[in-house]
């Protein structure tokens, strides 16, 4: 198991290297931050000067080398847009996104799994068909639309919830949480739902499909032959055996949501990393993008590792060797 972890850590480094290296190649096509930094009135000489200072006049591979040299000692540079150290900036935005994604995932699991179980057990029931229809809508409806719809109903018409922001947050060390205040919790409602709709639908369909498959397995028939209660057969045996792919998908989903909850965060002005990266792209804020992409590479590799660990925990067959 230790060799597995070490091997994975090695590939984590490789992934980070490749991702951030590629990001420097892409920057050439993303535009020029100099204009945003200096304003439209800057002269050609001033532009050239700044370009030199920032090293933007160098070829991509030289810029990448400089980035690596500094990144090794934890220095990811200063954000062009926010004028703050990049690492500090990303870390300060991370809690908002993590909290949002975690709440959405908990909601999605809490709603999606029971829905999936129900549909798997009564695939032909009227309510199952309704749920399946809803999930089809949930998978195909764009997040932006869900978010705007919620805002129109709950902010503009009913005026119950705030259309933007995180509400009041409480700082605990470097972490900031909205879960401890009323306004913070209320602010979570709409973004969490927006983010969870797709996940609920996806988890539901996944659980349903897997469980229907597992329900046909011999050990389920044998569990019935042993006289176990339906509840035990469905939940302890069938559901548990259906969860492996769910864990994989949800794990990857959490990763991509943390990295790219961009639409949802933009709609609700959620001050997380998704919004940060969106604005960084619009501004050509290269230091933020480079560091961010490297961290995303790192994050995904770590999530892969974690999912593997969870596999080991759930499925004893993989503990061998």
């Amino acid at each position: 198991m230790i060799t597995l972890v070490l091997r994975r850590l090695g590939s984590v480094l490789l992934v980070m290297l490749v991702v951030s290296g590629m990001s420097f190649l892409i920057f050439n096509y993303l535009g020029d931050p100099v204009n945003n930094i200096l304003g439209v009135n800057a002269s050609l000489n001033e532009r050239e000067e700044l370009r030199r200072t920032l090293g933007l006049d160098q070829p991509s591979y030289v810029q990448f080398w400089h980035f690596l040299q500094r990144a090794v000692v934890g220095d990811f540079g200063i954000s062009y847009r926010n004028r703050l150290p990049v690492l500090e900036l990303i870390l300060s935005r991370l809690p908002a996104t993590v909290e949002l994604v975690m709440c959405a995932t908990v909601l999605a699991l809490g709603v999606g799994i029971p829905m999936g179980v129900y549909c798997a057990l009564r695939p032909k029931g009227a309510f199952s068909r309704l749920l399946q229809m809803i999930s089809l809508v949930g998978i195909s409806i764009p997040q932006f639309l869900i978010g705007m719809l919620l805002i129109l109903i709950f902010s503009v018409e009913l005026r119950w919830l705030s259309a933007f922001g995180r509400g009041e947050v409480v700082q605990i060390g470097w972490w900031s949480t909205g879960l401890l205040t009323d306004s913070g919790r209320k602010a979570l409602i709409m973004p969490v739902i927006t983010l969870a709709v797709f996940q609920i639908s996806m988890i539901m369909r996944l659980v349903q499909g897997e469980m229907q498959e597992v329900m046909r397995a011999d050990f389920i028939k044998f569990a019935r032959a042993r006289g176990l209660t339906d509840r035990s057969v469905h939940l302890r045996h069938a559901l548990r055996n259906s969860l492996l792919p769910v864990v994989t998908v949800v794990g990857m989903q959490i990763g991509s949501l943390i990295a790219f909850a961009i639409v949802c965060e933009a709609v609700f002005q959620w001050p997380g990393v998704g919004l940060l990266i969106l604005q960084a792209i619009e501004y050509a804020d290269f230091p933020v993008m480079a560091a961010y992409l490297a961290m995303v590479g790192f994050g995904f590799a770590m999530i892969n590792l974690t999912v593997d660990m969870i596999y080991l925990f759930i499925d004893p067959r993989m503990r061998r060797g």
Partner: protein
Amino acid sequence: MTAALALDVRDLSIVFDTRRGSMTAVQEVSFTLARGEVLGLVGESGAGKSLTGNALIGLLQAPGRIAGGEVHLDGQRIDALPPEAQRRLRGKRIGAIFQDPLTSLDPLMTVGAQLVETIRTHLPLSAPAARARAMDLLAEVGIADPAGRYGQYPHQFSGGMRQRIVIALAIAAEPDVIVADEPTTALDVSVQAQILSLLRRLARDHGTAIVLVTHDMGVIAEIADRVAVMYAGRIVEIGPVTEVLHAARHPYTAGLMGLIPSLSRRADRLPQIAGSMPRPGQWPVGCSFHPRCPSAGPRCAADVPRPLSADDGMVACHLFSGGTLSPPAP
């Protein structure tokens, strides 16, 4: 005699409800089983033997259903019980063993936990008591080092060991009857023999009646007391194993027996008998076997032969409807 019957199946019929209407798959099957007796239920695949087995344990899967007949367990009729009552019988009074031990166990649960779960579903035991019983069961089915093996997962056992665990699970609550559906088919020949002897020992020591569903006459010869031969949804012949093996009455049985030069050989098909068994829904009028029967006469294509009871057996064939149990000379 009747009081000692562990299982009494009377005129059991199974139909499948399909869009094109009902299709009969098992028709008027009757047999009895005494305590400690092993009855082999044999036939080609599609004959209806597994369906019959499933019907006995109440796990007939939709769209199949019992359309007629009765199943009595220890004198109590069980086929008409509500689902929950049937569930309570399963595992407690009527156990089951399936073909593939590799897939019969939940891969994510230790064998100990699966045993305890089964025991506590049926017996009012405390957790430690259930655990102790689980160990005893493991020992009883021949697992060495039960304490060490208790916490292991199915994948850590070999195929034969797993089938032993399946058997342990089946007998966890000391059922009166066990329906074993091809319990050795997936196993190596050497392991087969061990499992069969284990089953026979259980029948002897615990008085458990066993319905052994198989297509393998070799298995029947090794363990069964009596044999019921199924063809196209009906039992065509029942008799003591030695009699059926050596002096089959029904032409189909005779054909089957012709196939076993040695008892360890398997017989998946009946090449000596031309043609193949018709599928449910395509059964011919009259005796289902008549298109393949070397001795078929005009009557065979018109009427279904009625079962004819003998001293310790039964046969359903027009050859015997004259009243004697020896076939008329051709």
